[in-house]
């Protein structure tokens, strides 16, 4: 049976992981390749590398990093952060990335999704959506790392993106992100049940129970988290074992 996926996310700046970690057993936890390899060996199903570098040197540093990751890591990985053209994506693909995630650039130019899907296949295109539930109860799309609100509803944008060729949706709830109080169940469930593509839930995972809930009740196909893995609050082997005990299909 197809399993639910556990995906650690690593934020990268100037070729280094950003958030501090307390991996005393790693030689250099600031090295995304070493940290990624550690997660792969622990049983992570995929990895996401999100580049937040904002310098002109960005593309070169990132492509070199992607090549090092591809050489050493034996599970699939997605690279995101500022991908805004076919050319950006092509550099990442040819250095060994399995998927790219696109966000603001795709919202501003939805044809980018279609072009990327036509050129490289839908499996290569992960649409990342940052969404926030407002006081009217609706979930809206936010851009630029959550700084800019739009009037577009999350569900409408996700549906349009899938019609254009997005192969997966990476859904981050800004209401839940950083809270460690659990993932956004309702919007994840709505997207996952209505869309033909997998939905990766992100934001709010704090305990192993939260993962079980987002898979069982939220119908997520995958769940992504960062700091709880980086700070060893939840270890991937323990998490997988727990989910297995909860009758959730996972790769052990």
């Amino acid at each position, binding site marked *: 049976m197809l*399993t639910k996926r556990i995906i650690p996310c690593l934020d990268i700046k100037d070729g280094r992981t950003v958030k501090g970690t307390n991996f005393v057993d790693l030689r250099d936890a600031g090295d995304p390749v070493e940290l990624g390899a550690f997660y792969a060996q622990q049983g992570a199903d995929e990895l996401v590398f999100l580049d937040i570098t904002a310098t002109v040197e960005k593309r070169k540093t990132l492509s070199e990093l992607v090549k090092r990751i591809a*050489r050493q890591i*034996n*599970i699939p990985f997605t690279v995101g952060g500022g991908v805004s053209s076919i050319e950006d994506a092509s550099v990442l693909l040819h250095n060994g990335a399995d998927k790219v995630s696109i966000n603001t650039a795709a919202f501003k130019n939805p044809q980018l999704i279609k072009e990327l899907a036509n050129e490289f296949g839908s499996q290569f295109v992960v649409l990342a959506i940052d969404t926030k539930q407002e006081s009217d109860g609706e979930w809206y799309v936010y851009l630029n790392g959550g700084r800019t609100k739009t009037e577009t509803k999350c569900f409408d944008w996700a549906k349009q993106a899938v019609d254009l060729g997005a192969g997966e949706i990476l859904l981050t709830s800004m209401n839940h992100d950083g809270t460690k109080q659990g993932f956004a169940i309702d919007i994840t469930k709505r997207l996952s049940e209505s869309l*033909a593509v997998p939905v990766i839930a992100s934001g709010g995972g704090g305990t192993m129970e939260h993962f079980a809930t987002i898979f069982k009740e939220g119908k997520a196909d995958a769940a992504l988290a960062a700091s709880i893995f980086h700070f060893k609050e939840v270890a991937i082997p323990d998490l997988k074992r727990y989910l297995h005990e909860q009758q959730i299909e996972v790769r052990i």
Partner: protein
Amino acid sequence: MKTVIIKYNAGNIQSVLYALERIGVHAVVTADHEEIMAADKVIFPGVGEANSAMNSLKENNLDQIIRSLKQPVLGICVGMQLLCKYSEENDTDCIGIFEEPVKKFESDVFKIPQIGWNTLHDLKSPLMSGLAEDSYCYFVHSYYVPMNKHAIATTDYVQPYASAIHKDNFYGVQFHAEKSAAVGEQILKNFIEII
């Protein structure tokens, strides 16, 4: 021992090259007919759409070269599908080593494409040597090869289907062995060691 990876418009060539590197195999990426024919092992990768992949092969007569090969050949993902007779993906005539057609998953319940880790069972052939039943591999695909007499691994998605096939010197795997952690590396190793 010389291993080549066939160069055409497939998206995962680099990943296959790196995966071989990790198991200590130096492979050459080439579209050169003589170099391919002289190799001990030939890997035929594939990511993308079947019709454009087939056209890319035909432009360089690589379809005919592949058909003529006598050494072990391993098709991966779309590479496996192109070794079959025909694909429903944009009505594509393929290389035809295996007589089976490649069909599209049809379901109202399952998401298509299948993306993620799934198990292999009913393992046969030296390609699967050393693997436990229900080993996990990484899949990304919307089209599949139905169960047939050449199946050397079965996977269940929508229905049971052939996730690996073998006939004479030709092998195919639907999953991405190059991205399937230790299990994938074992399969690549097994292929390199096939005589």
